């Protein structure tokens, strides 16, 4: 992958991760559920989950940029759905590792994995497509501004 694509993957991954977390925090605060959720998550655990999502997103954005381009239309969206699903399942795995370490119940983790994997893949695919559309818009505007 070219250096330029590597830099863009870093930008997009950081943007996606931060935007998802900021939006989630805003929604949880608005409905009054943020305090109780944060009370149940240790600081180190929260940081590890954030870093795992950031790292996963960096990797999958790099793979997405290596296989397609913003102007590729349906092909770009299909790739975005695929790599979004990979991100979703990967992040579920990170959450399951945390649950496994905390509760030490392998059967429970296996049930969560069995039920959660298709849901995580679907959510990841939808989020991946949404971000691909947003990225195409933002990069399009940025490209016009940078070369005007």
């Amino acid at each position: 992958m070219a250096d330029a694509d590597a830099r863009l993957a870093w930008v997009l991954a950081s943007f996606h991760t931060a935007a998802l977390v900021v939006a989630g925090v805003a929604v949880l605060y608005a409905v009054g559920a943020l305090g109780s959720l944060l009370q149940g998550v240790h600081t180190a655990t929260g940081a590890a989950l954030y870093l795992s999502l950031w790292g996963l997103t960096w990797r999958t954005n790099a793979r997405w940029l290596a296989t397609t381009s913003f102007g590729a239309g349906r092909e770009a969206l299909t790739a975005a759905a695929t790599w979004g699903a990979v991100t979703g399942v990967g992040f579920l795995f990170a959450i399951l590792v945390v649950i496994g370490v905390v509760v030490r119940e392998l059967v429970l983790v296996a049930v969560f994995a069995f039920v959660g994997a298709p849901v995580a893949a679907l959510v990841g695919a939808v989020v991946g497509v949404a971000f691909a559309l947003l990225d195409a818009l933002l990069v399009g505007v940025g490209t016009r501004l940078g070369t005007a």
Partner: protein
Amino acid sequence: MVPLALAVRWFHVLAMAVALGGGALAWAVSHTADAETTLTVATTYELAFWGAFGVLVMTGVGNLGALAPAIPRGAWGAAFLAKLGFVGALALGSAVRSAAVHAARDAATPATATLERGYAATTLALTLVVALAAVMAHG
């Protein structure tokens, strides 16, 4: 755990120093230097900015966790929601700014005046976020 909470705050302040100080530097350089220097500084700043931004969001949630479960509402909540709005707008605007730098590197005539305005807006937006953080911390 007090040392961990202290470390979270330290990283939060450090990341803001990188984002805001770097933004001001990129603004000054784009105002005074030639296109090549501007793009070199801008490219480096974009990488540092997104690293700092990620750390700011991560440690910001960590700082909220220190208040849990009784996260305040009222005037503090209004400042908090305004800060989240600014941060969201900053993320969107910064993605555009990074894409502009990305495109300008390959352009025959890079739009350095646009980049200068982008870094000015980034520095101003980050200053407002710091002001809101001060309101939240000290009332």
